[in-house]
């Protein structure tokens, strides 16, 4: 792979890394965010810290490729290897700036389902929450990463594993959901924000994608940045050569990103 071309998932990792600010404590979890944190801390966020619900706290990239947060390279030279109660308590105290989530389904208000879905009237059981519900409830903000597939976008999730902005408006405050809720969704085609009512809107389209081709993927009338912020819909910045090099260093065989 050369630096001129990159995969959808490499672009998602680069976009996710940009969501980690310098000095943030990031709740990382599984898959692409494993790489995004390592990119962020190697570039614009050298003072960021990552925490993992297994009990790992790190301030730098792992010493080798990670399939999971518990692979030995993630434990080696960590700041701390501790317990889940320790990590989740940081979350509950409001100390986690940004948490990463995925999902089989996301709805208009950023609620996520990873528990069960219905396909052609048949119920399909998914693995479940893991730490996602806790991250969704308690992080100051969350970033959601998902493949861009129309079946994943639903008006209302059939099972709300990880609360987003609920039914919109002041739902989180009314339901006593402590954290800030989803701020960004990154798919393989676009990035999205959430407006003052908690509703999803298109913020930027990835290179080569136009609005018409994604608008129909949503079973409601999708809002755009132009309506919400008065700014036009942006174009997602492609990953830089440096960032691509890092992604390929942290995922040398493309297990997660190709």
């Amino acid at each position, binding site marked *: 792979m050369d630096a001129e071309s990159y995969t959808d998932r490499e672009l998602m990792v680069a976009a996710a890394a940009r969501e980690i600010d310098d000095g943030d404590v990031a709740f990382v979890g*599984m898959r692409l965010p494993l790489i995004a944190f390592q990119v962020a801390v190697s570039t614009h966020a050298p003072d960021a810290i990552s925490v*993992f*619900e*297994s*009990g*790992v706290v790190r301030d730098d990239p792992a010493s080798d490729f990670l*399939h*999971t*947060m*518990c*692979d*030995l390279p993630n*434990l*080696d*030279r960590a700041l701390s*290897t*501790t*317990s*889940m*109660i320790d990590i*989740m308590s940081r*979350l*509950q105290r409001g100390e986690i700036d940004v948490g990463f989530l995925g999902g089989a389904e996301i709805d208009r208000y950023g609620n996520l389902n990873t*528990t069960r879905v219905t396909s052609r009237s*048949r*119920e*399909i*059981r*998914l*693995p*479940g*929450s*893991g*730490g*996602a*519900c*806790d991250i*969704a*409830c*308690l992080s100051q903000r969350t970033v959601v990463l998902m493949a861009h597939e129309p079946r994943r976008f639903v008006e209302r999730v059939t*099972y*709300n*594993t*990880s*609360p987003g902005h*609920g039914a919109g408006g002041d*739902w*989180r405050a009314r*339901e*006593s*959901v*402590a954290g800030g809720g989803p701020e960004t969704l990154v798919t393989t085609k676009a990035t999205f924000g959430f407006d003052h009512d908690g509703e999803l809107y298109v913020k930027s389209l990835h290179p080569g994608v136009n609005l018409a081709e994604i608008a129909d993927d949503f079973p409601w009338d999708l809002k755009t940045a132009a309506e919400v912020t008065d700014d036009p819909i942006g174009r997602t910045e492609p990953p830089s050569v440096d960032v691509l090099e890092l992604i390929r260093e942290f995922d040398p065989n493309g297990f997660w990103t190709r």
Partner: protein
Amino acid sequence: MPQSKVTDLSAAVGRIEPGSAVAMGLALEHAIPFAAGHELIRQETDELTLIGPISDLLFDQLVAADLVDRVRAAWVGNVSSGTGYNFRRAVEDGGLSVENHSNFSIALSLKAGAMGVPYLPTRSLLGSDIFEENDRFREAEDPYSGDRLALVPAIRPDWTVVHVQRASPYGDAHFWGNSGVAFEAVDAADDTLIVAEEIVEPDVIKSDPSRTAITRDSVTAVAEVPFGAHPAPLAGRYNRDNEFYLDYADETNDELGTIAWLNEWVRGVPDREAYMEKIDRDLHVSEPTVAAEVEYGR
């Protein structure tokens, strides 16, 4: 003299009765006691309730062997590939009852059990269907601040099974690396089985008491099983065998494949030694990174 609790794995697992509630796979992807799980399958210990945050493949394998009535967990699947096909089939066919948790709620359940209190409050869960669908989770008002909270009731497993790096014959154990909810589950359980990579002299344990995670008073039995966590990793000893997880996913996505897998890897091998002889990969840590020396003094 304290009593030695050392026994072979088969005898130790034999003490876990059918119908037991067993917590295992508690350090997330790390240090999963697969050898003990496979022994449960060989002994056909059934009607089990399994308790844990995420079990990676272990719960899927016990479900595949048709030994499980109920799962109380946050996530059941295959961390390398996603779906645990046997768990999925069992739930979809209606043969398996699931109490859905988040990682924090299962941690708090075990912590409450460990602390000897009936429940613990949390700010998590509120607003989720995990909370809405389960009558055991209650809503309460904090009598001090008036805040709305979720109450998570205690879980007290009959047995907790943990894999550790080393233990004395009496059951005092050193563990390092991330621990997830392992120690809370030990304290919450009636009985604990320690599966140790290595059984060491009691003096080794007492040389570094800050590393002692579990003491003998919590422990019922100790079994020495090198590579007993494979394909999970164990800090300082061996890496995750990712290929094994991917092969499992390929080979168990239908019932016939699952039966063949269980016959090949569990029922057809008498013990862990024979099982490890079938693994043609060197998983030992390539470079042992050593901690700074710790001094206590007298």
